[in-house]
């Protein structure tokens, strides 16, 4: 930003060209700022209107009531419990499978055309529309394996859905660890598994966890595949508790229970003609957004914690 009198006695014969390049450079900065501003404003407006609309319903009773034909009585108990259980099942399958597959592909598999093919396909799977997973799950889990319209089917479906995300982020996290550290472990006589378990995995744990949580926050908002496999839209009971008062104290019956989840409950309310139900939908939307943001915030915190003091 040269002052006017200085530009009069320009330093180089290319003065005009330089000013033009500077002008282009600063106009992009302004354009970028404008675009960010618009995007954020739209998002903020959406969330704000949702919160304002849903606010009257956001009370304790909303969380502890089953759905009802009376919008004032209706709540999200079945939905949030269902969401939590389905997420739990998803985690149970997606984390070990995804992380193990990522470790194998990155650390064990020979780097040849087959590995390249698998890599491309895993990445492509991340882009497959979720309803396709729903159809697959309907045929495979629900009918072929006869798991029915259960929490287990839903968990498996969403696990499949986020598996590519978990695999890809695991591989990226492992790849980010410098080879020098691998060699350091090997040079001390570590086996490949010791090198992975004692070193590479702990060092990349934060990044892997971030990937898992990002996958989870995608899964928690999924509606289409769960509708496909036959999630209920109106449910007035809870699955049996995983922890029982009598022996053997732990029960897995909840896995086979029918269920609904937050986005489906929301979808159900939105499609009702009564205005009052729209308020419920907005309130459920707010809860869903808070759930997702909490997950993402947690991921950011973990990444910060694990990366603190670790640099290479």
């Amino acid at each position, binding site marked *: 930003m040269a002052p006017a009198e200085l530009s009069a006695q320009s330093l180089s014969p290319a003065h005009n060209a330089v000013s033009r390049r500077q002008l282009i450079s600063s106009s992009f900065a302004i354009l970028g700022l404008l675009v960010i501003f618009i995007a954020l404003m739209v998002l903020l407006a959406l969330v704000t209107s949702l919160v304002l609309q849903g606010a009257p319903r956001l009370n304790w009773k909303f969380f502890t009531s089953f759905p009802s034909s009376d919008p004032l009585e209706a709540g999200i108990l079945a939905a949030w419990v269902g969401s939590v259980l389905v997420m739990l099942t998803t985690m149970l399958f997606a984390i070990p499978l995804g992380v193990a597959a990522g470790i194998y592909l990155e650390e064990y598999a*020979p*780097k040849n055309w087959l590995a390249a093919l698998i890599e491309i396909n895993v990445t492509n799977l991340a882009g497959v529309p979720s309803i396709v997973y729903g159809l697959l799950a309907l045929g495979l889990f629900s009918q072929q394996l006869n798991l029915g319209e259960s929490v287990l089917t839903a968990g498996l479906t969403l696990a499949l859905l986020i598996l590519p995300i978990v695999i890809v982020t695991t591989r990226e996290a492992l790849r980010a660890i*410098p080879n*020098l*550290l*691998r*060699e*350091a*472990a*090997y*040079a*001390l*006589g*570590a*086996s490949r598994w*010791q090198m992975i378990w*004692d*070193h590479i995995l702990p*060092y990349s744990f934060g990044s892997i966890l971030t990937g898992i949580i990002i996958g989870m926050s995608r899964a928690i908002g999924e509606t289409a595949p769960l509708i496909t496999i036959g999630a209920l839209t109106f449910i007035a009971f809870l699955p049996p508790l995983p922890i029982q008062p009598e022996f053997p104290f732990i029960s897995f019956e909840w896995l086979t229970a029918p269920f609904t989840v937050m986005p489906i409950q929301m979808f159900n309310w939105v499609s009702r003609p009564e205005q009052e139900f729209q308020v419920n939908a907005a309130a459920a939307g707010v809860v869903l957004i808070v759930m997702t943001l909490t997950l993402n915030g947690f991921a950011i915190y973990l990444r910060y914690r694990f990366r603190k*003091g*670790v*640099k*290479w």
Partner: protein
Amino acid sequence: MVEELSLPKLNFPTTDLKAEVQDLDFYYGTSKALKNVNMSVPARKVTALIGPSGCGKTTLLRCFNRMHDLYPGNRYDGQIMLDGINILDRKVDPIEVRMRISMVFQRPNPFPKSIYDNVAYGLRVQGLTKRQAVDEKVEQALKSAALWSEVKDRLTESAYALSGGQQQRLCIARAIATDPDIVLFDEPTSALDPIATASIEDLVNELKQQVTILIVTHSMQQAARLSDYTAFMYLGELLEFNQTNVLFNQPAHKRTQDYVSGRFG
């Protein structure tokens, strides 16, 4: 040919050999990186490998702990004998080799763990679990690496809190904690400032009382200062191997002469 083969074993006052390289060829895929290398590694001495870059000195060093096994397509031909066993034999597990021949790398590469855990890792891998025994070994190794007085009050702190020179000494402590037969140094001071370099060199001098040292260096001065024996390598071949003062003052080969006098390299 006969002359070349006999050279490495020429007039050594020491008969105490730790390891012997015999007719070693090494291939990265199809390219031959080491050609018929023969040399001896005298016990409890410092042996330096020098030569212009790309001559194969690091390649040779990494044969000693089978580091090449980590990457596909590499192939050894010939022997490195240690206690009557060819450590390059396919039937010898590289892990066993690495448990007896440890390595210090070009850049300090401590694990992002505590100072204590860094030194203890090799011991734990070898199955030493008794807390007290590990404690003792860690202290001993840190003392040998001239690091104990600087870190004894902060053993639980991250190794990344140490300076570059301290990190390299920590890596040396890590490498000697398991009482290896040979310690390999791969240009251990190339990433360090002159003061840290001097402390590492002092340390190497101290360590040769207890352990056999093989060091790759690109600095002829360092080889001259540190080593008892020097091998000069050129284009994958070991051209000359002798006591350091002989090799530097009365080199047998014209090329060695040119290199040590700084005419190329």
